[in-house]
């Protein structure tokens, strides 16, 4: 599946949330969508799932069967878990017997068996989220789109999510998943898409041990506090110098291969920080 030059905004005069996004994902591949809050992760996922239509550009070769797990399951519906899931299974094209079987299977697997006769609005957030997960899996999807799937789930179900993803991948499907809790360490083979300023870039994981140096300028009065905070976050502070002129490469790991394109301190005191040391935590 490919997103080709996708632009999207929510209102005619609103800001662009996605600007010219070009990404592709193949069968058997999983991509983790990363980025800070409000940057457009959900928007990207909803474009991929076919919920949102791009203003410009197109989504090509989207698999016919898409399972979408929204960030918040819409629990404000007057159905029991079983009635709702059966309805969704029938909607997905399963016959009566197949739908009943799929609902029984998935409610058992996700620990929802005891909640089959419970009405959706009475469910806790985590249990409702499991119903959201179940409805996407009732019919094996060719594309599974998971928006913060770990949110509110108990430990045993959190473990189950990578298992479900693996099953979709093994069947030749693709999976897109967003996460801001760091749970995606459970998906070691995943590609990483970073969303920022409306565009998506693929982050290629660096080999272990690679480091980079970032030079940061801070007001001189805040040097001690900043150094302490960076160290507390696990970064290695290489040195502190009093002026903001570009410095020759500092001694230490990574310093030797600094290129002229790397950011330099422009004001106040300069700090050289070993970034990868922090990331490798």
């Amino acid at each position, binding site marked *: 599946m490919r997103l080709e030059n996708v632009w999207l905004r929510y209102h005619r005069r609103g800001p662009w949330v996605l600007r010219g996004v070009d990404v592709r994902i193949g069968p058997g591949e999983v991509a983790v969508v990363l980025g800070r809050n409000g940057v457009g992760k959900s928007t990207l996922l909803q474009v991929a799932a076919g919920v949102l239509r791009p203003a410009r550009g197109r989504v090509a070769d989207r698999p016919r069967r898409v399972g979408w797990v929204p960030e918040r399951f819409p629990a404000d519906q007057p159905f029991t878990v079983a009635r709702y899931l059966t*309805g969704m299974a*029938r909607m997905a094209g399963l016959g009566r017997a197949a739908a009943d079987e799929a609902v029984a299977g998935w409610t058992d697997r996700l620990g929802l068996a005891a909640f089959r006769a419970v009405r959706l609005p009475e469910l806790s957030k985590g249990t409702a989220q499991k119903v959201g997960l179940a409805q996407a899996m009732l019919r094996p999807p060719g594309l599974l789109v998971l928006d913060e799937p770990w949110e509110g789930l108990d430990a045993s179900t959190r473990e189950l999510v990578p298992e479900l993803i693996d099953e979709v991948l093994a069947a030749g499907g693709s999976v897109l998943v967003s996460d801001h809790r760091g749970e995606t360490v459970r998906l070691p083979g995943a590609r990483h898409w970073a969303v920022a300023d409306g565009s998506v870039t693929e982050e290629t994981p660096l080999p272990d041990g690679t480091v980079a140096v970032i030079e940061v300028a801070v007001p001189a009065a805040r040097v001690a506090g900043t150094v302490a905070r960076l160290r507390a976050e696990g970064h290695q502070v290489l040195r502190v110098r009093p002026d903001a002129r570009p410095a020759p490469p500092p001694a230490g790991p990574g310093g030797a291969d600094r290129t002229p394109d790397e950011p330099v301190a422009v004001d106040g005191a300069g700090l050289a920080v070993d970034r990868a040391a922090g990331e490798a935590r």
Partner: protein
Amino acid sequence: MIALIRLRLAGFLRTGRAVAPLLVGLVALGILYGGGRAQPAEAYGVSAVVLFPVLAWQTKILLDVEPDVQRRLAQVTVGVARERLAGLLAAGGAALVTVAVALAFPWLVGGVTGPVDPADRSVPVGVALGLWAHLLVVPAAVALGALASRASVGGAGYGVAVLALGGVGAVVLGLTGSVAPWLAPPIMAAARTTAGDAAALTMVGLTAWALAWSAAAVGGYLVRRRARG
């Protein structure tokens, strides 16, 4: 798609929000038939006019009961076209039930009478004309209600404004001597026809007009849905 229609109708009935428009419809019909006995064709023509805003409101409620995220889930599951169509068909089905109630209502409260004069129409002909007038209203009301739904207009205020404008507009623009009668569905003209000579050609023309208006309104609804993602 049948599953989606059933799920939407079930959601509409189970929340109890189906009661309000039905109750308002019955009260309006009660007032209408409380004024005295009338012949079926005449009474049903007016009943259809009264029912137009009620059915549009009922459609809006039916479509609005479903949470926005659930509507998107339905769209992902069955596709865009079938998601839209299922909503309109569910609303149409609910409207037909209300129409059946409206057609039976005057017989239960003694609001209609048989032919008094030899020139009067027989009861079956009167009922058939009444059925036509009501069926003419259904697509137009469903289209107006869809246009006023949250998925189409967003905020609740706009939806109510669209409903009010459509309901009042259909009556005002449908009055004899209106400058732009084609802007509204021909519910007033249909009422005049059932009460008057009910010429076949006029009825065919009005049916075509009602369908064209409904198609245009549904087109507007689809454009709004598309624009809103």
